């Protein structure tokens, strides 16, 4: 059981780290969400794996589950949720302000050179494709 859980948490972390390293803000947000899931499970496992022990002292119970990780995880979930919501809002604002959802592109003249240009070109191509789709829909609606 421990091995299975450890492997599962490791897999979630691996996926999260991979996604965080992607250049677009959407995959970064997903990656951070995965990281926080992995972290929450990890904290939860810090209280040991147990099936039937209650977190409160009940008549007839032989042992107690550790209630502290549950409290910690609750705090971590709330904070992680708020942070993710804020990041999504910021990503949208950043898209509106800079016209790109790249998270790895620095300011103008930052010496990124060719990479920057290819990224911009890709963005333009994506944007053109999106606009074409929008136009198609818009045309359909007006007809």
């Amino acid at each position, binding site marked *: 059981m421990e091995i299975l859980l450890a492997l599962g948490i490791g897999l979630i972390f691996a996926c999260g780290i991979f996604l965080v390293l992607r250049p677009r803000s959407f995959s970064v947000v997903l990656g*951070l969400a995965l990281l926080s899931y992995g*972290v929450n499970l990890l904290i939860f*496992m810090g209280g040991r794996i147990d099936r039937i022990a209650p977190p409160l002292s009940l008549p007839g119970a032989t042992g107690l589950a550790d209630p502290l990780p549950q409290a*910690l995880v609750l705090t971590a979930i709330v904070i992680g949720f708020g942070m993710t919501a804020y990041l999504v809002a910021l990503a949208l604002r*950043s898209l509106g302000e800079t016209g790109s959802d790249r998270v790895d592109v620095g300011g103008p003249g930052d010496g990124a050179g060719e990479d920057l240009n290819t990224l911009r070109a890709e963005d333009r191509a994506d944007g053109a494709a999106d606009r074409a789709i929008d136009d198609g829909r818009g045309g359909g609606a007006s007809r």
Partner: protein
Amino acid sequence: MNHLPILPLLIPFMAAAIMLALGQRGVAHHRAIGLASMLLGALAALVLGVEAGTGTVLVYALGDWRAPFGIVLVADRLAATMVLLVYALGIPALLMAMGGADRLGRHFHPLFQLQIAGLAGAFLTGDIFNLFVFFEILLLASYTMLVHGGGPERARAGMSYVILNLVGSAMFLVAVAFIYGTLGTLNMADVAIVLPNVPAGDLALVRTAFAILVGVFLLKAAVLPMAFWLPHVYSAATPAVGALFAIMTKVGIVALLRLSVIGFGDAKATEGLLLPWLPVLALATIALGTVGVFAAKRLATVAGSLVLISSGTLLFAVAFADVPATAALLYYLPHATLATGGLFLLAGHIAERRGELGDRLVRGPCVGDRVVVGSAYAVLAVGLASLPPLSGFLGKLMLLQGAGSAGWQPLWWGALLGSGLGVTLVLSRSASLLFWQPADPLPAKPTGAGPGLGLFLLVLAGPALTVGAAPAAGWARDASAQLHARDPYVAAVLGDVPDIERERRP
């Protein structure tokens, strides 16, 4: 119970709540409440400093749950110093923001108060998970304050800053999970007791946990491999926010100092966790900051790179955590924080006067009323370049004498003196670009009372720390001795609980 230790963070929390409850009643209400809260909080911090100055370690058990089962706030000399510094920097930053920057977006004042509360809490808490919570409070406020005012540059800086810190928070929680899973406690004093007796099988896990925790603190302190975000993030913020951010790297540094002295002790599990690689990284950070100062195109970016240099300097002293090094660190830290904060404010003042040129370091008509602004610049620059006679020089002298054992001395002296030379060169070149130009000076522009007073207070800090150098250095020595004694801290936190009955963990 003495409720004093919680006041410096409760007052700004209450102020933020009141402001949010009042809603958008105009910024005048917010300003009045904010300023009143800062002054009250500063008063509480002062009283706390006086109480802690007697040598007692004040412990506040939240909800009267005793440590290690409940969360405690601990106010020793170190915590009291840092809380006082938060207010000493916060009041001028708030005064600067009252010049009109707080009108650029909504909710500036509540967020400012929350950030102050988070900072004070992070310095006061004696519990590792509670430290995480206060980190998040101050970070969430800083995320929003960073993008305050809008614009593409801030949005872009905000994205990288938020993502980096969210990953850092996730890593912090990983460390918390491992520490709780292995040691069964998150109270720092209790960790100090449990750590030497860790069973051999858990040793690797405990070591990993603390290594991750140190890594997170170093990310907050912006040490070299994780330092590149800082200059462009700090310089993108509005000047008042940038000035307040000058203390945020110090949260990581002080947390690391406290953890390494109180928590680690001489335990085998954490042996050699900081030495010898932390001094290397610290020296490299100083070098990077110096290069950054030369490369900077704006005065605010110069200030951002100076934050890096001071981070590296302080972390080098943290790595050799002994009494003289810590004493030097505690004298240098307030000086470095207040002077860098002052430079951020000054960059804002200069940008306001130069119109389109902003604070960019390019030729142009020189700043109007250059006698006033120029002398403020001169005092700050002498402090930042660590030239005699101001406190920067005294602080660096103490650091040169106190930190680093024999083998490190040549590198340490080379890095500190070299970076001092670099900063001197850049700051004098900037002065000639800003103040000594043949073209007619721009018309003098009256400064609002708030921003002017804010800048004046921070400019005054350097001379004040110089005139009061003897008592300040004495205080720093006492604080350092108290921190390194460890036993008073542990005894005060855990009280008269002689042997806590620990459950056996499977």
